[in-house]
């Protein structure tokens, strides 16, 4: 268990800057999720913590020790890769035992640790198999096991679930969360899937083009996005952005979540919109509207609520408490 401190981290590959100053204090045992769209620098940030990329500027401290210059093996971390990175020529047992053998642990201790991890991950029947004889989910578990047996100070995960099918992903997500809580090991977890981020994180870092737009607890980030990017990225279906000028507010745009939109008779709402199509998902129905300005608005209502006919016009309403204003740079404006 350890703390991790990132202090104004920058990274350039040659002349291209990809990370522009990220800072965070990770507490002992905390589960931090780094989330953002493809190419925003999540993996690069994680790999700098692992020691697989050099830090261009800033300082990384693990357990209050500066590790910028330390080799990966001297950082007491374990990493789970997106493609699992198992050793293809070794059995599951040897894959998990590899790091322990290098650390010259006694044979009995190695067997004991691998057995415990295998039991925890339900890998006992597969210890003698090679990685190619395992399913994707089992390989994923072996990669987890390899990280667990070393009892590292921190876990680093780089999109560990993105190669699994949807159902297995939900299951493994729950298992990872349970394991992390049980072991209490500080974790950094990279994903581009905002549902993974919402469900796993104690706190999340929402990254946008090399910057940390917002750091906070998932529900806090959901309710109070600090930038238009965060408001749009977190939440599914995405937040609606309405043009501020059409609504008479001093802002570039105004964001309202689909579940906070209500339907009213035409002319009776804050703005009128035309229904383009409705998606009935059973428990809920998503209604997609088009505004006179051309913007698209989605509302979410109970599956049993009446659905207007496509092509008809309706008024849209929402409480002022639920609207968030952004300026032309996408920064949040004070309400009012």
């Amino acid at each position, binding site marked *: 268990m350890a703390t991790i401190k990132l202090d104004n981290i920058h990274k350039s590959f040659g002349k291209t800057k990809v990370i522009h100053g990220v800072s965070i204090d990770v507490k002992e045992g905390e589960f931090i999720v780094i989330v953002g769209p493809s190419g925003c620098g999540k993996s690069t940030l994680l790999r700098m913590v*692992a*020691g*697989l990329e050099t830090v261009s500027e800033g300082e990384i401290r693990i357990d209050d020790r500066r590790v910028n210059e330390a*080799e*990966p*093996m001297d950082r007491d*971390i*374990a*990493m789970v*890769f*997106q*493609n699992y*990175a*198992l*050793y*293809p*020529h070794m059995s599951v047992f040897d894959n998990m035992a*590899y*790091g322990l053998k*290098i*650390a010259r642990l006694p044979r009995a201790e190695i067997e004991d640790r691998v057995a415990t991890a295998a039991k925890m991950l339900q890998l006992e029947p597969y210890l003698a198999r*090679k990685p190619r004889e395992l399913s994707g989910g089992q390989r994923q578990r072996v990669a987890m096991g*390899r990280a667990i047996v*070393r009892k590292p100070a921190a876990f680093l995960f780089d999109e560990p679930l993105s190669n699994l099918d949807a159902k297995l992903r939900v299951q493994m997500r729950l298992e990872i969360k349970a394991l992390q809580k049980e072991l209490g090991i500080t974790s950094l977890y990279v994903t581009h899937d905002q549902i993974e981020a919402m469900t796993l994180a104690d706190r999340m870092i929402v990254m946008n083009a090399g910057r940390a737009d917002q750091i906070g607890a998932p529900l806090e980030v959901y309710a109070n996005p600090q930038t238009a990017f965060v408001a749009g990225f977190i939440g599914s279906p995405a937040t609606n952005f309405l043009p501020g000028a059409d609504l008479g507010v001093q802002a570039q745009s105004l964001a309202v979540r689909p579940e906070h939109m209500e339907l009213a008779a035409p002319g009776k709402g804050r703005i009128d919109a035309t229904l383009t199509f409705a998606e009935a998902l059973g428990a809920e129905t998503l209604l997609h509207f088009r505004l006179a300005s051309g913007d698209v608005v989605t509302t979410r209502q109970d599956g049993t609520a009446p659905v207007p006919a496509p092509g008809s016009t309706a008024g849209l309403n929402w409480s002022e408490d639920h609207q968030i204003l952004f300026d032309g740079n996408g920064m949040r404006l004070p309400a009012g």
Partner: protein
Amino acid sequence: MEKRVTFKGWLLPLILLTPQIIVSAVFFFYPAGQAVWQSLFIPDPFGLRSQFVGLGNFEYLLGDPYYRASFVTTAIFSILVTVVSMGMALWLALLADRLIKGSGVYRTLLIWPYAVAPAVAGVLWLFMFNTRVGVVSWYLGLLGYDWNHVLNGSEAMGLVVVASSWGRISYNFLFFLAGLQAIPRSVIEAAAIDGAHFWTRFRTIVFPLLSPTTFFLLVVNVVYAFFETFGVIHTITGGGPQQSTTILVYKVFSDGFVGQDLGSSAAQSVILLFVVGILTVVQFKFIERRVHY
């Protein structure tokens, strides 16, 4: 799914195969058959008639200390050429694999020696090590070492090994580099995080994952050392001094064309044919099934 082309009749496939069959027959089966036939005779001292001796040539060869010595020479030569050319190639490939910038230039330069014909390579090395005017032997002389591969058998062997390995390094380098680059980066990184330093990673991860490539090159290089180094040996040592660089293939040439003992030479060819056969079987048995892990 296997894709198969099927022909309706016999004519078209026959026409398509004919050129290959003719080439094989004229340049392979006919001379091979002739060699087998000749190996059963010995010519009289004037070369006018031959006498049938059955397996006499083979019996004589296997009892001949010179022929047996040539086997040993061939074994030493092949092992040295294989080890030197593969070892150097692997070392260079490891360096090139770590290189991010300029690896293209490095690779191109390393491929060039492969384009040099063995006989020309032999002459190049011969010039450098020439006992009177060679650059290298001159420097060795300055260091107090009297280089003379014309008289010293071990030095002659060393020189033909170096000259034969040189061009071969390029070929092996390409395969090793491709093999190294096929190993996922993340596997190496995982090993680094697991605590393995460079040499541990090489020993426990890289080398085992490279084993299909290594095995393939092993067979290919042995075949090369056995059969394709004739030009180098012919230009540098001519098999000497005192037969110390006479490998089996060279002996076929020197006994047959120089010594005019066609029966013995033919018998030697037949023995070599068996060696090739065995190597081919080994190659097919192991290399066709590439997956070793």
